[in-house]
């Protein structure tokens, strides 16, 4: 067995947050006190459960984790620097590659930031289409996540395959609308690129109507499964105060019992017109994170139903809005929306030229990873894998 030197690996570092009892109980690490042999294992970057090229530098006492450092950047291509060298419109397709499961919401977040920066209004019909696509994207993301999470729990692919069957249907919709399954490049400043046809809307309606039945089936198989509950309940508890302080957003924050949903808080787009609820958890453990997403999908179905029914006519793009050669006045804007993984925001600084001087992506996966170590300490390797799975990261977004 390998014995890491505690001084060199920084094991003795105890992290604490000032001012309040926010800090999780970080086991004070004392290598000389009967802790047994320590084993330093590098989980990743080539590991089946790290959801991409991601590494966890883990120090184990038996199977108990006494230190865990996330290491990433393997997919780093300096997305933000690319944004500085590209026109405002030119960055739109790049945003697809951030969270490559949810290009629709990435597009929307970027569009909102630019619209704020340049003061562009969005047409009514486009707002509805955006909501429809964003909620489809949310369904897609949460379904996939549930499948991946179950895979991390050790299911032999069955839930994942069920999830992917539904994902394919949504991807087919995206493809028939935007021409691409995953890299949609769909939103524009002040609206969107293609007007959905009546057939597309009918197909979407069919999918939305059938999705509840899929969720019922999925939940009947998994949510009450004894082993799933035993594996996920009480694992990776995240207290609400720490979650807020650590900038955790999205379903993960809500699982900890904080009813914070930007669709309600910011009320962007036309979300205030829809009637939906925000499910929140109590324990903040992996099971809550899973269940909050399952319940959120039900609300998404309701939103989709309302949006499809209330979809107004009219143009999808303000004819006065400018796409190419957009030169916003010097200034800055931070725009954010509630992406499926949490708050996705874009911070843009313009100096009056055609390219932004600063193009910053606030990626939810990246910020949510901050507390990975706190969640995993004291748990076993098997738990670390599902805790990571329940955080829901996409490395395209973490590494940028």
């Amino acid at each position, binding site marked *: 067995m390998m014995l890491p030197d505690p001084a060199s690996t920084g094991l003795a570092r105890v992290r604490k947050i000032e001012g309040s009892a926010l800090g999780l109980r970080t086991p004070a690490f004392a290598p000389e006190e009967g802790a047994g042999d320590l084993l330093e294992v590098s989980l990743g970057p080539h590991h089946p459960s790290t959801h991409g090229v991601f590494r966890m530098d883990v120090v184990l006492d038996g199977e108990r984790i006494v230190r865990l450092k996330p290491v990433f950047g393997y997919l*780093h291509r300096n997305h933000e620097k690319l944004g500085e060298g590209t026109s405002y419109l030119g960055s739109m397709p790049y945003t697809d590659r951030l969270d490559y499961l949810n290009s629709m919401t990435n597009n929307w977040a970027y569009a909102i930031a630019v619209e704020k920066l340049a003061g562009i209004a969005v047409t009514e019909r486009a707002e509805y289409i955006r909501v429809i696509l964003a909620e489809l994207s949310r369904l897609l993301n949460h379904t996939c996540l549930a499948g991946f999470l179950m895979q991390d729990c050790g299911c032999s692919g069955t839930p994942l395959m069920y999830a992917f069957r539904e994902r394919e249907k949504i991807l087919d919709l995206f493809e028939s609308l935007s021409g691409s399954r995953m890299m949609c490049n769909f939103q524009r400043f002040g609206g969107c690129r293609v007007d959905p046809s009546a057939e597309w809307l009918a197909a979407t309606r069919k999918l939305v109507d059938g999705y509840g039945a899929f969720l019922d089936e999925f939940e009947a198989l998994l949510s009450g499964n004894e082993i799933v509950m035993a594996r996920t309940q009480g694992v990776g508890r995240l207290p609400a105060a720490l979650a807020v302080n650590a*900038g955790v957003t999205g379903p993960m924050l809500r699982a900890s019992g904080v009813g914070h949903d930007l669709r309600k808080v910011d009320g962007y787009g036309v979300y205030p017109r829809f009637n939906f609820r925000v499910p929140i958890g109590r324990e903040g453990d992996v099971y809550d994170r899973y269940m909050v997403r399952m319940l959120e999908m039900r609300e998404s179905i309701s939103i989709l139903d309302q949006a499809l029914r209330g979809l107004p006519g009219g143009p999808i793009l303000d004819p006065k809005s400018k796409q190419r050669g957009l030169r916003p006045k010097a200034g800055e804007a931070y725009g954010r929306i509630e992406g499926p993984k949490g708050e996705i925001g874009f911070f843009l600084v313009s100096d009056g030229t055609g390219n932004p001087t600063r193009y910053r992506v606030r990626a939810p996966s*990246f910020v949510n990873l901050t507390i990975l170590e706190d969640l995993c300490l004291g748990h076993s390797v098997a738990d670390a894998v599902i805790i990571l799975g329940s955080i829901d990261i996409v490395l395209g977004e973490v590494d940028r």
Partner: protein
Amino acid sequence: MESPEALRDRLLARFPGASLELVANGSPSGQVSFRIDPAFLREVARFLRDDPELALDQCSNVTGLDSPDREVVETVKESQPGAPGGPPVVTERKQTRIAPGHLEVIYHLYSVARRHGPVILRARTGNRTDAVSLPSLTPVWRSCEFQEREVFDLYGVVFEGHPDLRRILMWDAFTGHPMRKDYVEPDDYEWEPTPHGDVLAKARRHYPSAAAPGAAQPSP
């Protein structure tokens, strides 16, 4: 939430001696920000977090911003006494001057409890070379931990009091800060130069010290 001006006044009253400046925003977004003296940054941040009316409990976004040194061309008017009795002769002379650059860190604060925001804080380093330290806000908001590491990695701002300031996206042996405006990207992305014609020539240009045959490892 109170208006930015009112907040500025309140902060100034609470922290006398702090230089606090309201930075206007030319864009329609209207998101104004506060530029704060780094010496007071952490105190102000903690006040903003703990003040019951503001309760800015979430630091959503941490961003670096690079303003390189730039040449400023100024027109200097010099008046010399002209002919006696007559008006002084004004000569205009163009003078170029190097305005020192700086690195800036921007924090976007929101309140989850009271559902308002953003309140934007900015702090500047002294310059871009040796005085690049700023106080870390990670002790105030955990969400700054990785984001400040990223700013350190990509911009080179050193955060005092950060618990674990290491590179986060680039590898540990990397030198330089790629998000700075004056960063020049390498000609060759191969870590070990391949000894083949053009690539070798490129590598020589890029790693002059290692170009000598037999050099084990290029050290950029």
